[in-house]
Structures are given as structure tokens and as C-alpha cells.
């Protein structure tokens, strides 16, 4: 096998790898999306403060789609509440050094990886075709 044929093979391999990376990034995003919960971080009041103010705690920021796999991080759901999000215990997160991953972070990196994989894959396919084109005349002469 001459050099161009080998390079064409390597380029096709890299194009295949780019396709696999693209698929993996979407699979990871799919997993993250399935495990993300719309959650509001809240620092719970102690019992006296909660009773005085009639609320469970101090709201921190706005609701985000968070990927939290530890069920203890969530406050018990209030069946009477009409909230569209779950409350996440900020104190618990801090005590356990949990910095929740946001779905938008996964989405951001998926997009970057996707663009890189598609561009890289197309470049490799182009190179593979070019290298293959350089191989054929030599084979014909042989």
C-alpha cells in the first residue's frame, strides 16, 4: 500500500472517529437532559425563621435545569404547592461540595463538539477523497 492509500485510510478512520464523537456528544446530552430537573436553589431557614416568615428559605438566583443525582439534595416536595420546579437545598450542596452541573453547560459543550466533529469529519472525508484520487493513477499504471 502506497503512502496516499495509507493517508486516505487514516483520514477515513478519523472521519469515522469524528462521527463517533458527534454521536457520543449527543448521547451524553440525551442522558443529561433525561436527568436534569428544573430546580430552584434555596437556603432553608431554621424552624423559627420559617415559621416567622411563612416560607421555607431564601431563594438563590433563578430556577435552572440542574443535573443532580443525589436525591437528598432536594427538599421534600409540598403536594399543595403549584411550583413548576423543585427546591434544592443549598446548604446540603455546600456541605457535600456539590456544584450542580447545568444542562446549559452540557448543551454548550455538545454544540462546540458537534461543530468541531462535523467540520473535522468533513475535512477528513475531503482529504480521504483527495488522497484516494492521488492513488488511482498509480494503480492504473501498474
Amino acid at each position: 500500500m502506497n503512502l496516499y492509500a495509507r493517508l486516505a485510510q487514516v483520514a477515513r478512520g478519523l472521519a469515522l472517529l469524528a462521527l463517533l464523537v458527534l454521536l457520543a456528544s449527543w448521547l451524553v446530552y440525551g442522558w443529561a437532559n433525561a436527568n436534569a430537573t428544573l430546580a430552584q436553589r434555596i437556603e432553608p431557614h431554621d424552624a423559627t425563621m420559617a415559621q416567622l416568615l411563612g416560607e421555607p428559605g431564601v431563594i438563590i438566583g433563578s430556577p435552572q435545569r440542574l443535573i443532580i443525582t443525589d436525591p437528598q439534595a432536594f427538599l421534600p416536595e409540598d403536594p399543595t404547592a403549584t411550583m413548576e420546579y423543585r427546591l434544592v437545598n443549598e446548604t446540603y450542596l455546600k456541605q457535600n461540595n456539590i456544584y450542580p452541573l447545568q444542562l446549559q453547560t452540557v448543551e454548550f459543550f455538545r454544540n462546540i463538539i458537534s461543530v468541531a466533529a462535523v467540520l473535522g469529519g468533513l475535512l477528513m472525508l475531503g482529504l480521504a477523497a483527495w488522497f484516494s484520487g492521488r492513488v488511482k493513477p498509480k494503480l492504473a499504471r501498474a
Partner: protein
Amino acid sequence: MRKQIIVAAALAFSSLVAFAAPQTFSLAGDRHSATVESVTAVETFTGRTSKVTGQIRFDPVAKTGSGVITVNGASLETGNRSRDGHMRSAQWLNFDQFPEIKFETVSVKHLQGDEYEVAGKISLRGQTKDLVTRATLRLLPASEQTRSLGFQGDVVNLRSNFQLKLSDFGVQRLGRTAQTVSDTLNVQINVFGSNR
């Protein structure tokens, strides 16, 4: 029985008299919460501190008041030291040079219940701008509960959420930052003041 009624009436009257004049509530303790939230392409992050000082003057009968609230911006923590450092730097909120976010009321208008429209001046990065926002102010008379929480006297709980446009305060989002970081900073204030 008559004596009890007189005592009850006297107590009710004295409590009305006690609240009839404007009172000054000083922010004290560490139960305050000031949060800034910034939306970026990578994530939406919050910086938070309990270091808030100031005074609220409130007349519960006239439903008006005034106040000054100062947040120690240099103590805001986002959960990422590198980002905290960048937030304090001159490239961003410049707390290294101007460590405080200060709000001073100009006028207060009662809306309904505990809701108020507050107009004032806010200072950030050494620049002062006008701000109109809504605020909730609850008066919590002194009780066993407030005392057990460490408050002396009557307590007010003031809350407000508002947005600041960073470019109004001289924050320059250069290059890629202009596309990846929002020009809006969401601010949440939740503070407690006591009149003793």
C-alpha cells in the same frame, strides 16, 4: 373584667402609638442575603454574600420611608475562586477599587399590602445611576420568635429583585464576551433590620 378591658385597650393604644412615628431600623446580624446572577453561554451563575449594612427608616402608618443599603461586593462568592477574582477585577465589577454596591432611596410609594415602589440611586464600579424597583417590606413586631432569632426590638424584612445593565456602569464586554455573557445582572436583596 373592666380592668382587663382597660389594660387591653391601653396595650393596643400603646402599640399603635409605638408604630405611629417613623422608626429607624439598622441592618444587623448575618441573616442578610445579597445575590447577583449572571447569564453566560456556559452557565448561569450566582454570587452571594451576607455582608450587607445600612439603615431603613419606615413609617408603618404613613406607609413610607427611606433607606441606605450597602452590599460588600468584594465578599460575593460564586463557588469558583478564579471567577470571584475576575468579578472583583477592573475588567468586570471592579470591587477591588470600589468594593461596595450602594443603594440610596429618593422616594418611596406604597402600592398595596407590603409592596412598595422605590426610586433611588445605585452605585456600582464608582458610577451612580437612577433605579426604580419594587420592594416588599414586612414589619415583624418584637416577639419571642424574633428574640430567639437574635433580633432586638421590632424587625423589618426588606426584599427586592432588580436588574442592572452592566454597560451603564462601564463594564465593557469585549470580543467573544459580548456574545457569551449577558449585559444584565440580576440582583436579589433580602435584609433584616432591627429598631434596637
